[in-house]
């Protein structure tokens, strides 16, 4: 009995220690679970933020694309208006030139008629030079020079229009190339494309840039053509 009484407190202490240990373990498990939950929540938040950032970047891209499209539309409208104006101006010039030409021809005919009349009256015969299409040598030369001048003027007007149109096209093309290059670099940065695709796209952009330079040279050449002699 004495032995049992001496062992009993020891057993009690062991039991108490076991109970406390169990509680602590349970508490630790609960804390671990909470920590895991917090980590998961943090991860989720991080993912959400990344998604938001991507969405914001996409929106920015969309906005930039829309802005470029709007600019292109505006440029096209301006170009069309300019073309219409230029066409009207050319038409007016053509009409004026035609009128002037007709008046000149009428004057020449009148002069020829008068001379022919005089010839008929005086009976001198056809001694005033060669007759070319109802015009005498000198008048024929004048008419021909006038015609050549008119033709030249018309072509010069057309060239001016083409030069203006070409300039606007180069501006638009340069903008398009800039956007394409930026997009390509972004794609490369985000590793959305491999090196081969990157090189192919870059080559296309470089070729387009060369074509712009080529057009600019032609425009420069067009500008250097003399308008009048």
């Amino acid at each position, binding site marked *: 009995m004495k032995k049992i009484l001496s062992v009993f407190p020891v057993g009690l202490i062991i039991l108490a220690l076991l109970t406390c240990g169990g509680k602590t373990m349970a508490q630790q498990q609960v804390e671990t679970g909470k920590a895991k939950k917090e980590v998961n929540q943090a991860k989720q938040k991080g993912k959400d933020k990344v998604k938001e950032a991507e969405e914001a970047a996409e929106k920015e891209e969309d906005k930039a694309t829309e802005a470029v499209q709007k600019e292109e539309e505006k440029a096209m409208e301006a170009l069309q208006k300019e073309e219409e104006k230029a066409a009207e101006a050319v038409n007016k010039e053509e009409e004026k030139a035609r009128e002037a030409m007709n008046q000149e021809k009428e004057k020449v005919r009148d002069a020829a008629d008068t001379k022919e009349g005089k010839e008929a009256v005086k009976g001198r015969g056809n001694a005033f030079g060669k007759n070319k299409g109802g015009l005498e040598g000198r008048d024929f*030369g004048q008419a021909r020079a006038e015609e050549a*001048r008119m033709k030249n003027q018309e072509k010069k007007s057309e*060239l001016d229009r083409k030069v203006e149109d070409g300039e606007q096209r180069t501006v638009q093309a340069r903008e398009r*190339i800039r956007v394409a290059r930026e997009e390509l670099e972004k794609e490369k940065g985000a590793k959305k494309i491999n090196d081969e695709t990157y090189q192919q796209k870059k080559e296309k952009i470089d070729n387009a840039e060369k074509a712009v330079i080529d057009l600019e040279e032609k425009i420069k050449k067009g500008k250097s*053509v003399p308008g009048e002699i």
Partner: protein
Amino acid sequence: MKKAIIAAGVIALFLAGCTGKAAKEAEKARALEIEQLETVSTQIDSTLNEIDEAVMKLDTLINEL
């Protein structure tokens, strides 16, 4: 009187010669002008074609981007 008639004839011949020469000079100048205008027209035509070709090429390459 005879002298006056002869002098008038000489002057008339002289004037006619000068007028003819001037007319020929004017004709030459006009021909030269026409030639120059036609040269410029040809140059303009060639430049127009070059610009058209360059624009077409650029359009194609830009559409490929």
